[in-house]
């Protein structure tokens, strides 16, 4: 009996270990390839680098990975801030109103959650272009916000529905307005759901590709995904530099994640509730 439980335990570890290796191997390949020379990558795909060569990192850095990261950071922070603020305000009103029109508005929000960005790519592009906001950070922050709001509103809505109303009633009796109640009572107690939404949207917008590809074409405003995609345009086929660029782009986020993974995972898990 004991032997059998042991065997089962080993089996379970084996399953998890196999998947872990499967997950880590490509990341390892990316790291190792960044240190190889072009010829080494292509002629000895399975070997370690012949020497610890950092030149690929230098070439990748010179392409502008640093500024791509800064752009991504700026766009992500701004859009997440807009999403959280506007969705929080809207979801609270929607969750607390009995009016019929509010139900319809909520359904409209859910409907917009289902609209894929490709569906509106052309009109959206023409609008941003017509508004002279191509190649500007604001030009991409606003669509990012607009497409992030529906999901976040739905998430907040569910949270606010379960929020204990007794606290709010007490504040209302003290003469607080709806806005005051929201900021003094509700916001301070909404930390976990805000963190969930913020992290989810941040990961999503940090990695967004399609809109950024269409709207951020100027090199100085490109975000990471478009910047990375641009590494293999017509004339550069520098695979070590591509892998080095991917490493530079990925590693800070990975380290941040590993350090803060407990909060990270707990926050994202809140989405499923």
């Amino acid at each position, binding site marked *: 009996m004991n032997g059998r439980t042991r065997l089962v335990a080993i089996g379970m570890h084996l399953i998890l270990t196999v998947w872990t290796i499967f997950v880590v191997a490509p990341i390892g390949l990316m790291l190792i390839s960044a240190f190889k020379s*072009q*010829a080494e990558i*292509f*002629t000895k795909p399975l070997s370690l680098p012949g020497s610890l060569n950092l030149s690929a990192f230098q070439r990748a850095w010179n392409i502008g990975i640093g500024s791509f990261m800064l752009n991504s950071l700026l766009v992500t922070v701004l859009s997440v801030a807009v999403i959280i603020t506007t969705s929080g305000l809207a979801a609270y009103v929607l969750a607390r109103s009995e009016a019929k029109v509010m139900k319809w508005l909520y359904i409209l929000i859910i409907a917009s959650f289902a609209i894929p960005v490709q569906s509106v790519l*052309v*009109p959206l*592009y*023409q*609008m*941003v*272009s*017509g*508004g*002279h*906001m*191509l*190649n500007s950070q*604001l030009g991409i922050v*606003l669509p990012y916000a607009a497409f992030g709001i529906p999901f976040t509103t739905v998430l907040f809505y569910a949270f606010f529905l379960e929020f204990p109303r007794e606290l709010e009633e007490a504040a209302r009796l003290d003469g607080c307005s709806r806005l005051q109640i929201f900021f003094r009572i509700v916001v301070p107690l909404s930390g976990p759901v805000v963190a969930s939404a913020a992290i989810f949207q941040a990961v999503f917008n940090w990695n967004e590709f399609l809109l950024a*590809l*269409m709207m951020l*074409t*100027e*090199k100085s405003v490109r975000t990471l995904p*478009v910047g990375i*995609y*641009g590494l*293999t*345009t*017509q*004339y*550069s*086929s*520098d*695979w070590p530099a591509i892998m080095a660029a991917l490493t530079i782009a990925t590693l800070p986020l990975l380290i941040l994640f590993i350090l803060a993974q407990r909060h990270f995972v707990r926050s994202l898990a809140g989405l499923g509730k």
Partner: protein
Amino acid sequence: MLMMPRMRALVAAATLATLAGGSALAQDAVTIKMWTLDNTGYPEFIAQAAEEFKKTHPNVTIEHQTFPGDPYKTGLQVALVGSDGPDVFFNWSGDDAKRLAKDGLALDLTSYADAPGAFGTTVGSGYLDAFRYDGKLYGVPADAVSKFVFYNTAYFAEHKLEVPKTLAELGTLCKSIRAIDPNTVPMPLGNKTRWKAIHWMTMLNERELGVAGTAPDYDLSRPADALYTDAGYAKAFQDLLDLQDAGCFEEAPNATDYTVADTMFSSQASPMEFCGSWCISGFETAGFTDVGFFRLPVVDGGRGDAGANFLVPEGFQVSAKTAHPQEAVDWLSFLVSDDQAAKFVEYTKFMPSNATKIDTVEGVSPLFKALAADVATFTQGVNVLDVLLDAAVSEAYLNATVEVLNRTMTPDQAVEAIRKVALEVQAKAAS
């Protein structure tokens, strides 16, 4: 119905203006907004030219923006329809440039071309013709790309290999290389993004049918019952398959990225590659100098001309919406003037449309000069299929070529598929 696009733009502008708080900067001086690809050396070339141009046109500021290849076409088209487009922009000669002319988005430059010092006087007429539609000029050709078979001269010398004179000899050459080492890929194709093989078909069609033989099919002017019925088209596909059977290409060429193919040659793992004139800078970066080249050989019994070779002129067009057409043309004429054309070569290593001073350019490799000299001897330029053809026919050609290489279509089926789309497009244009 005519109102629709404008209404869209209006809704767009109005709604966004309210969001952004609307800002319009009034400027006294003339600003020319220029869009190009972000090719190596381009930003630096334009920057120095803009400085130089200011000496004669102190009120003109050039605002240069660069784009990666794929989103460029889309972004350009949308921007030209909208209100925020560039004044002057890079474009390839061919279907795209023609469509812009047809849709009234590109400015007719005919009346500007022949003024003293203007581009019409410095650029050869062969180049100018690439941007001429219905007898009017719609672009300023700046350069051209060509394509050759590059080979590793050291490898050829070591194994006593000869440059082939016919396509059949090229196949034999591949077999000899495989005989030396079966793992050596003689000439990697790298067709994952589909344009590498379409470049092959461009030249193979020419080698089988000749430029005159293909032209009426390409521009859909041949009567419907004869469109794409020439046996040469299927033969050209068969030529490609024969080379594949001779072991010329790598495994699964349709799944191999062109960057991998390029690297296989420049890292000297493969002794040959059919590559563009733009590939030279890649060889130089890799420190690979033992490079020779030859044109894709002719076919025995083909109607092609050994003097004809792959040539895609590219250059600049002016937006029909520009507020400063004269300054825009002045600027473009300046870019293709003798001195600037030489600078252009220095910065970009591209084949210039005005080669008057190419010998004065420093830092250009002998290979580049030899290539430029060879381009000058072409009897005819062969424009590339995916740029030249109507977009839908081009898409059909790209896919058919992939399927032929995958052996999921025979050459005859491929030509039939292309003919079907060509007939649809032809019928639509007539209605």
